[in-house]
């Protein structure tokens, strides 16, 4: 009898695991389909008399990019100084503090600038996207678009995706500049050199390859943030509470996806 009960519990657990896995795969598939459909509308929209319009793209770009400038500036500046302090401290331990510029420049351009910008934009714009789509869904606005013969993907998703794919690399580039600059503010006096000498050293150290490494990642992040936001927003059910739940979920998923993808990218490219 007890064994039967144990088996019963086990099957229930396996059942739940199976359903959970199926839901996860379905969500992943939905995301992939969204990317495919977005590319389709970008390429074929004009032919189908449903062009992707520039106006909404620009509006989204302003919101995603220009709106995030202040906070990206503050945080990348802070991280530049933080890296400089840690770098000087740790390299001093074996008397190599003169090499600190190399470490700071590489880690800012290749890692910290894209990562911090991605996380910030996921929190600012990914969540806003999920909340907006979720509210539109429970308000039947998505249905209204569909029955009007206007593709919701073309009308709502593609502008956000394009704006994100343009603005996130721009913000990353800006974060690179600010981070390297503030790091220099600390490093130059510490090494007893000048800002001019520091800038010279940075420009000779940072290769095109390093910049592209960071920017390529930020393009991947931009797709992840948009798709995670849209998938969560489109799956909202159950009123205002559902919108809140899915918005939180979209931020957590987007940041996790960014960090994990970052690791995989680095593993594939840098070894």
């Amino acid at each position, binding site marked *: 009898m007890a064994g039967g009960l144990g088996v019963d519990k086990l099957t229930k657990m396996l059942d739940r695991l199976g359903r959970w896995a199926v839901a996860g795969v379905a969500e992943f598939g939905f995301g992939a389909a969204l990317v495919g459909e977005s590319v389709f509308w970008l390429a074929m929209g004009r032919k189908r008399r*449903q062009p992707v319009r520039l106006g909404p793209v620009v509006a989204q770009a302003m919101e995603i990019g220009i709106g995030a400038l202040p906070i990206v500036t503050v945080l990348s500046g802070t991280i530049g100084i933080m890296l400089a302090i840690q770098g000087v401290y740790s390299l001093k331990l074996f008397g190599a503090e003169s090499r600190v510029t190399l470490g700071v420049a590489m880690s800012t351009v290749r890692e910290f600038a894209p990562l911090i910008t991605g996380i910030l934009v996921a929190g600012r714009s990914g969540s806003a996207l999920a909340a907006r789509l979720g*509210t539109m869904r429970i308000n039947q606005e998505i249905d*209204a678009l569909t*029955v*009007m*013969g206007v*593709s919701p993907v073309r009308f709502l998703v593609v502008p956000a995706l394009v704006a994100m794919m343009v603005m996130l690399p721009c913000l990353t580039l800006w974060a690179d500049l600010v981070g390297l600059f503030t790091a220099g503010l600390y490093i130059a006096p510490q090494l007893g050199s000048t800002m001019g000498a520091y800038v010279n050293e940075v420009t000779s150290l940072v290769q095109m390859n390093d910049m592209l490494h960071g920017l390529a990642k930020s393009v991947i992040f931009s797709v992840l943030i948009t798709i995670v936001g849209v998938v969560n927003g489109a799956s909202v059910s159950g009123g205002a509470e559902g919108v809140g739940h899915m918005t939180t979920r979209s931020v957590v998923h987007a940041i996790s996806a960014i960090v994990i993808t970052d690791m995989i990218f680095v593993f594939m490219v840098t070894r």
Partner: protein
Amino acid sequence: MSRSSQSVAHSVEVIDLNTHYGDRQILHNVSLEVKQGEIMVIMGGSGSGKTTLLNHLLGLMPPTSGTVRILDQDLGRLTPLERQKLRTRTGVAFQSGALFSSMSIGDNIALPLREHTDLDPTTIGIMTRLKLEVVSLAGFENLKPAELSGGMIKRAALARAIVMDPEVLFCDEPSAGLDPVVASSIDDLILRLRDAMGMSIVVVTHDLDSTFKIADRICVLDKGKVLALDTVEAIRASTDTRIQNLLNRRTEEAEPDPDAYLRRLLGDTSTPPDGTPRT
């Protein structure tokens, strides 16, 4: 504008529609047809399946089996492009209005024109204001949906639904949640639209007064089945107790099966309440 609507036999045709949510059957062999220029009211209490039926008519949900034909085109067999074209010939006014909250009323109504036609902005502006006049909302085009009252939102939603001069108009609970005077004005508006533009109109509602006022024919849905499909007079004269209960607002008769009642109370889920729709 040249229209092919004269050759259309039925504006809407539903044949043997069945739907399930999970294991539960919502619609049972529902069949109905709406003639051109006719106002068909789909009536039924909460949970009768009328919203589900509307979602099928709008092509928002695929049925388990059966056929939905809108303007002689089978919804299940259309290519995406054909479907998009068909949707420019139909209009929908949702229960909550479903106006885009980020846009002004004028932009909401102009949206289908901007997306589907090559008209210049001046013409679009004129057509938008024309439809606003039709629904007596002239001068409100710059307001946001949040700044309108419930009745005004419903009228704005109607204006958006008819801006492309559709051949078929679907209205979901056009008068629900409104006071009797405003509700009556919406009914008048629907009648005017049919008379002036000759559209076929499908109205889904549980409002009896408005049903009798606007309907040419009534389809009474009950527990996912078509209980009656007839003219207003015939429905009024019907001797069917279920229909009379609905018309006279009597509650349903007492539980016919005490055993089933007891089983439900005991939480016995081995015998699912077959076919009982969601309330």
